[in-house]
């Protein structure tokens, strides 16, 4: 028995990788579903967007790239679905150049699904470097930063943008964050211009954003794949995040078992020494 425990405590890491891979693949293949109720902060984010009057403007900031896509892309798609279903207007920009095309892809896909028209229902502004300077100038006049959209069309020739000049004209700012841009949104757009913000984030940075929620600096927080899955549930369109959460559950149980096994093996070896 002790020999077995010793071996169990020294499993080759590659075997662990393989077990985790197989657990994820199997759960996705069998399309396992585990029920969970949405977190209060996600429900709050959903309610805030749901209560906006039709025609309100929601600004999305794409502050992630391909390495965070599995968590933030489903979140973006679920939120865009919600916005278009509620006839809200969407403006998209971003501070991560490598991620912006991903945001644009999702925006075009979902807009097509809801038969929305570019320039009237949604606009893609693109990217400008300068992070804080961009955020501060958006509070004064969007045109001072983005004179045109990403195609070079002047903003005033886009019907949606004619009456949008600064944060006063934006009902909610949704920042999808994989790094520290969310902090900058809070520190500049919220603290200086009182802009209402919902942050969607990768699980890694979610714990760092909870203090903002507790202090009322952001009105909603959607964290990681769990948050994305919750939002998919709320918009009644379960997709990749909901499917992924089942794998997540199975793998977490597996990791707990492996940690226990490792510790038992460690103590068995130590007693022998």
């Amino acid at each position: 028995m002790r020999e077995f425990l010793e071996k169990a405590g020294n499993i080759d890491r590659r075997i662990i990788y393989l077990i985790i891979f197989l657990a994820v693949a199997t759960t996705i293949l069998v399309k396992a579903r585990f029920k969970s109720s949405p977190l209060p902060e996600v429900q709050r984010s959903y309610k805030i967007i749901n209560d906006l009057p039709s025609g309100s403007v929601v600004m999305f900031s794409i502050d992630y790239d391909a390495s965070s896509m599995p968590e933030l892309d489903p979140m973006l798609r679920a939120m865009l679905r919600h916005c278009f279903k509620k006839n809200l207007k969407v403006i998209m920009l971003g501070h991560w150049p490598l991620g912006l095309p991903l945001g644009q892809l999702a925006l075009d896909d979902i807009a097509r699904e809801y038969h929305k028209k570019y320039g009237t229902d949604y606009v893609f502004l693109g990217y400008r470097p300068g992070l804080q300077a961009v955020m501060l100038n958006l509070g004064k006049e969007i045109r001072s930063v983005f004179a045109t959209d990403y195609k070079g069309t002047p903003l005033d020739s886009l019907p949606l943008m004619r009456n949008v000049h600064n944060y006063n004209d934006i009902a909610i700012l949704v920042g999808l964050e994989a790094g520290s841009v969310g902090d900058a949104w809070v520190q500049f757009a919220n603290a200086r211009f009182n802009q209402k913000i919902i942050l969607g984030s990768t699980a890694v940075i979610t714990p760092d954003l909870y203090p903002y929620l507790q202090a009322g600096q952001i009105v909603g927080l959607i964290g990681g794949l769990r948050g994305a899955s919750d939002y998919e549930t709320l918009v009644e369109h379960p997709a990749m995040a909901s499917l992924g959460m089942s794998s997540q559950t199975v793998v977490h149980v597996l990791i707990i078992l492996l940690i226990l096994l490792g510790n038992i093996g460690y103590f068995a070896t130590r007693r022998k020494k």
Partner: protein
Amino acid sequence: MSISLNPWVWIAAFLTLSMMSFLYKDNIFYKIGEHIYVGSSAAFMLIYLWYFDVKPKLIDGFINNTGFSRWILIIPAFLSLLMLMRFVRPVAWISRWAIAFTVGMGAGLGITGLLQGFLVPQIKATILPLYVSGHSTLMTIYLSLNNILLILGTLSAIVYFYFSKEHTGPVKKISQIGITFIMVAFGASFGYTVMARISLLIGRVYFLLHNWLGLV
């Protein structure tokens, strides 16, 4: 099962498997994937900066604007040239002027941003009543305990990082409470990190099974 016929999906699948192969050991496929990623990211960034910044803001701005808006652009153009002096060894030091400008602006914005947008609101958020009346006794206990924990956690964690007095006696006791709170925060952070990493794996496995092999 309907395997994708899109060559780009096949390339993406090949690169995904190449990167994952590093888990077994370093190999040529991983190296290929890594180099393609670094190269394409750098090229993409360059194109993006050119088309979203240098061309519309500087070049087109100089051509199309008139008066002050036109001539003010000489300053960023000049600073950019100074920055490029890094590549000319005898005058590389000149690039420090442009860097000094960037650092100064960043520090100024950062300090005011942190004070106004982080420190003050966060301190305000910890000034809470120790007794909160709820709609039931249980709720009152819950809400009050929540506030007490938050205040205790904040103060004890600050004491843990107070190094001007030796951690003995009551200071030691309070700092031990502080480290307990910090450990709980680390634990939550670690749990979330595990979830994030597994999410990335889920994303790629889903891509392989859904987009590439068409099994899901």
